[in-house]
């Protein structure tokens, strides 16, 4: 990639080359929440979002974590992006502890979440410039970098100055990908990046992720509930179920292990439940309760 934030280059060159991109050991996170069936005034109970999760991701690898709503995928991404503090265990990104070395990690990581969160009245160019400033990119740098990165994700040049609120969901998600890549992260966290997109936009975003892998030295953690997407993009696939990581292996090994032909069948074999039947509560519900 030619559009690289200067500070990121500087830090990336100082990373411990021996350290894996991500190391997670016995990571735990528990929220307290009310059982909604028990009524509004019921006592809050502990709800484990992540339970003793352990895994490692090598540099340059693309790992997909599959799981349904409420399985803990978003909690994992938010812990690795320093937005949450765990209750126990350890998580390291390129050798840096996510809690103690948060400021170093923030230079190395960026993410794309299911909601393409932007200032809605600002244009794509303005939103990207704003995000880039936090990573040390000056107006002179973003004047060339922003159109270039938007071009790479297939964003129409004539719509760069249009308010985000006038763009389709697929367009907004492309801008979200552009925002994440503009800062040249060495670890890219993708939290359901194609959920809710139309089939064409979904394929375009997936193609772009492939391009990033091919052209850019980035490690990718893709959290999704789309099994086909995971299978086509990732080197290894993990299954997170109710906060527990049941396995993390190459897809063929998963199928061999359970003696099945598809990942849906593997999910059933691992959990005893159909993948579709689960409709667990998302971590976001805990937040809505805060507002409620």
């Amino acid at each position, binding site marked *: 990639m030619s559009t690289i934030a*200067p*500070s990121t280059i*500087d830090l990336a060159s100082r990373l411990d080359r021996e350290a894996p991109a991500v190391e997670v050991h016995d990571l735990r996170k528990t*929220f307290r929440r009310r059982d909604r069936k028990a009524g509004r005034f019921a006592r809050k109970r502990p709800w484990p979002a992540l339970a003793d999760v352990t895994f490692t991701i090598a540099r340059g690898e693309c790992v997909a974590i599959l799981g349904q709503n409420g399985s803990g995928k978003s*909690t994992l991404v*938010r812990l690795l*992006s*320093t*937005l*949450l*503090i765990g209750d126990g265990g350890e998580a390291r990104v390129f050798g840096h502890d996510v809690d103690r070395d948060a*400021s170093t990690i*923030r*230079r190395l*990581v*960026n*993410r794309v*979440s299911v*909601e393409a*969160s*932007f*200032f*809605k*009245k*600002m244009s794509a160019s*303005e939103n990207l*410039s*704003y*995000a*880039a*400033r*936090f*990573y*040390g*990119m*000056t107006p002179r740098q973003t004047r060339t970098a922003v159109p270039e990165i938007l071009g790479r994700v297939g964003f129409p040049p004539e719509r760069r100055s249009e*308010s985000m609120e006038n763009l389709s969901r697929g367009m907004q998600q492309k801008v979200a990908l552009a*925002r994440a890549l503009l800062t040249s992260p060495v670890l890219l966290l993708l939290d359901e990046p194609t959920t809710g997109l139309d089939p064409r936009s979904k394929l375009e975003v997936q193609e772009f992720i492939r391009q990033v892998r091919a052209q850019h030295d980035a490690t990718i953690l893709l959290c999704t509930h789309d099994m086909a997407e995971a299978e086509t993009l990732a080197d290894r696939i993990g299954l997170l179920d109710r906060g527990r990581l049941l396995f993390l292996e190459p897809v063929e090994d998963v199928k061999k292990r359970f003696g099945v032909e598809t990942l849906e069948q593997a999910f059933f074999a691992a959990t005893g439940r159909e993948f579709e039947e689960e409709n667990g509560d998302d*971590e*976001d519900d*805990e*937040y*809505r309760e*805060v*507002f409620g």
Partner: protein
Amino acid sequence: MSEYAIEMRNQLVGLFGIVERNVYLTKRYFLWDIAFMFWTIANTLTIVFIARAANLPPAEENTLATALLVGATIWAFLGIIFEFMTETVAWERWEGTIEYTFMAPLSRLVHLFGQGAFAVLYGLVRATILFFAVAAFLGLHAPNANYGAALALLALASVSFIGVGIMTSVLPLISPEKGAQLGFVAQGLMLVVSGVYYPVSVMPEWMQWIAKISPATYALRGCRASIVNGAPLVWANVWPLLIIAVLATPIGLAIFKVGERYAKKHGKLKRAG
């Protein structure tokens, strides 16, 4: 460049980014600003007309009206700084960008000071328009006004206001639903004790003690003296503001960091809905 120099440069660029974003948003919401300005002018007129109703000789009426106008103008300025600071988190949460801002490598001090810097610039423009619009409407005269001294004192007070604003800006972080309202409680408390429309001496003694730690008390006293009587910058107003400025920012930042950690522990650092 050394690592320290790179970091300093990046933080300055980040600070510029916060100011630049607010400029973009102000341009987009320009009509809202005009409506808000109209409301502020109307509200200030309702206060300044009290001087007309007092049936004083013209010179005394002019003095009272100017003193009330100075109070209303500085209060409007202070209100903008408080609003910007208190809603730093609330706006980002509403727009959904809060997670991206808080996971960015921007120091919290720079983040909050960037917001404060824009609030001061924006507040100054609005306060200037308000002051001269109302003065022109009522035909007020301030022939001895020392605007330079008033402006210098307001600039110094702004640092204290930002520091106090940082303390209140943590509230929406730890209480997404009620935090902003609690910020308005703090702002209201400052309004009551700082002598915006009356001398501090008319309040009960315990309230006068609280007035001593409010930066608005010294800003109002000094600006009123400079505009009504043409007084220069007085050390008695400067040193308390210096002390509050030096103390309020690190205390505010420490409080914010504790609040941020609490929010991260309890999963509250996320977008609305």
